Each structure stands twice: as C-alpha cells, then as structure tokens.
C-alpha cells in the first residue's frame, strides 16, 4: 500500500520471498535496476518468483512479468544471475496513459 507507515506484509515481495525461503522453497528475485522513458514501475521495484512459477510484486504494469518469470525459473536452476532488457510496447504504454514506450532493465538473481 502506498504511503502506509508500516509494511503491508501480505503484499510485500521481499517479505514474501523471506517466507518462501523459510518454507524451504527455491526463490528468485527480480529487480528493476534502470528505466528509460515512461517505465511503469520505478527503479528498485521487485518481482519475486518461486520454482513453480508463483510470483508476487511487479517490475512493469504486467507487460513483461510473464517473460521474467520464465527467465527466473532458469536462474533458479542454474544459480547464475541475468540482466534482462525490455522495451515496453507502444500500444500497451498508450493504453495506460503513457505518451511513449519506455524501456526497463531487470536484474534476476537466485536467493541463496
């Protein structure tokens, strides 16, 4: 929740990732590390993914999460971090009220 004084533990990706870890799950953490233009989520935003493809959080307005989840499952397998780069499709950007397509860079790493 924006502007909440305390963490919204039920929806906070990093809290959820810690919980998954305690449950013995394999987890990957994706982080927006750079944005150009009208990117929907700010630098530092997280998507956390488990080995079954469950995820919480977001790195875009829903445009690239599917691709990030696929890559993340690979990263969990190999243990090797990856840097992904996406251009946000112009049409999608227009639908959410952005004037032009942005680009984002997402770092995907395994937890542990």
């Amino acid at each position, binding site marked *: 929740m924006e*502007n*909440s*004084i*305390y*963490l919204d533990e039920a929806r906070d990706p*990093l*809290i959820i*990732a*810690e919980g998954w*870890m305690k449950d013995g799950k394999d987890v990957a*953490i994706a*982080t927006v*590390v*750079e944005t150009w233009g009208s990117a929907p989520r*700010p*630098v*530092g935003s997280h998507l956390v993914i488990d080995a079954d493809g469950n995820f919480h959080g977001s790195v875009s307005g829903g445009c690239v999460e599917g691709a990030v989840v696929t890559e993340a499952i690979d990263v969990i397998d190999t243990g090797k*971090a990856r*840097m992904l780069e996406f251009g946000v499709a112009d049409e999608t950007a227009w639908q959410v009220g952005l004037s032009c397509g942005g680009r984002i860079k997402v*770092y995907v*790493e*395994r*937890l*542990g």
Partner: protein
Amino acid sequence: MDPYALKTLNAERRARRAAILVTDLGDGRDRIVREGDPVAGDLGAAIAKAFRTGNSGSVEAEGRTFFLNAHLPQPRLVVIGAVHISQALAPMARIAGYPLEIIDPRTAFATSDRFPDVALHAEWPEDVLKRQPLDSYTALAAVTHDPKVDDFALKAALDARCFYVGALGSRKTHAKRVERLLALGASADQIARIHAPIGLDIGAASPAEIAVAVLAQVVHAFRSRGLEAAASAPKSQSILEKHDA
C-alpha cells in the same frame, strides 16, 4: 541475493529504519548498509546521497558497477493539537506524501467532524506515544500552545531523534518553553533542534498559510537529513555533485 542480507533488510524495514542493499552487478555479491555505517570513497558518497533522496540506482565506483536499492521508511507527521492549523495541514500533508496523525486530549477539539478522514487520537500524547513510539522518520509539530499537552511530546520527539521538531509560539513563549524542557532533562543541543517559531518564514498570516510554512519546513528537514555532515567535508560534497551529473 544472500539470504542473510534479505533477512537483515526485512528486519530493518519492519523496524522503520533505513537500509540500502548494495549489489555488485559484476559478481552478484551483496550486503546491507545501514544509515550511519561508514563507507569510504565514491561508493560511500553515492550511498549517502541515496539515503537522503531515497532514490535507487546504479553507481560506478572502484572500477565496478553497484546497484543501490534504497529502502527508506515512509516519513510521517505527528501533530500535537487538533487546531485550525491542523485542519489545513492534514490534507496538504497527505497530498505531499507525509501521512499525518493528530493527537489532542481535548475532546472538543479532536472531533471527526472537524477532521474527516484523519487519524485522530483524542488522548494524551503520553498514552498514544507509548503505543506508537516516535522515530527518526517521524516529524512532530506541536501546535496547541498548551504546555500540558505540548511539552511531553516535544521531549519525546527530541529523545527519539525525530527528523523534524517544530513548536508553535512566539519567541517569548519559546523562551519559557526552553526553561521547561531543560527542567525535563533535555540538553541545550537537543533544544536547539526545535524549529520555533514554527514554519519557514514566508510571512504566513492565516492558519492555512502557517500550515504551508510548516509543511515546507518538514520537507526541507527531510530532504536535508545528513547534509550537516557533508557540508563539513567539502571533498565528499564534490563527489556527490559528480554523481548528479
């Protein structure tokens, strides 16, 4: 990400303390830096800036690329006094991104009619602050004019190192307040942190204008946290500017 780093980061975030996760994008190694931890060189300067602005981003230092993910607690504003100024301040602070709570034991003042959609406590500050302690990401503005209500909260704010402490009243009123706070055990250095008369000097005349002056002073205090240290070290200041470019 190191599981220990994640646990540490979440513990800091739950406790409303600022922390930065520093990740070396070359080899993936990471560590947590807490506010005030000494970090040397260009990386240290970039970390200091990230703590101040709350902005995350990449930085080149020591021939490597680091990603700094800054996790700052949500700053908030506690107002002692359900008065006319607070009525104007409540919506302004919310819009500016500083959630606000009002504490005033005088039930005639603290009514939901006068303060729709505001977190309002018609109780003594002593009782509310025991439940919800102040911290360094909280600003406190005392605007009742009544020592019985204001003084305890002001002392608590100084002890909790609130990033902003302001008190309404003329210089003469404040001089008397200083005597009382000294008697309560506050140090002269602590008392010097109180903004009194409250608010930036913009010639505010009406309660709403005073609210603007108070809010502007709160924002300034928040965005200049830690700058006193940087000002006394001109070298790190020039590095900060380099990262701005």
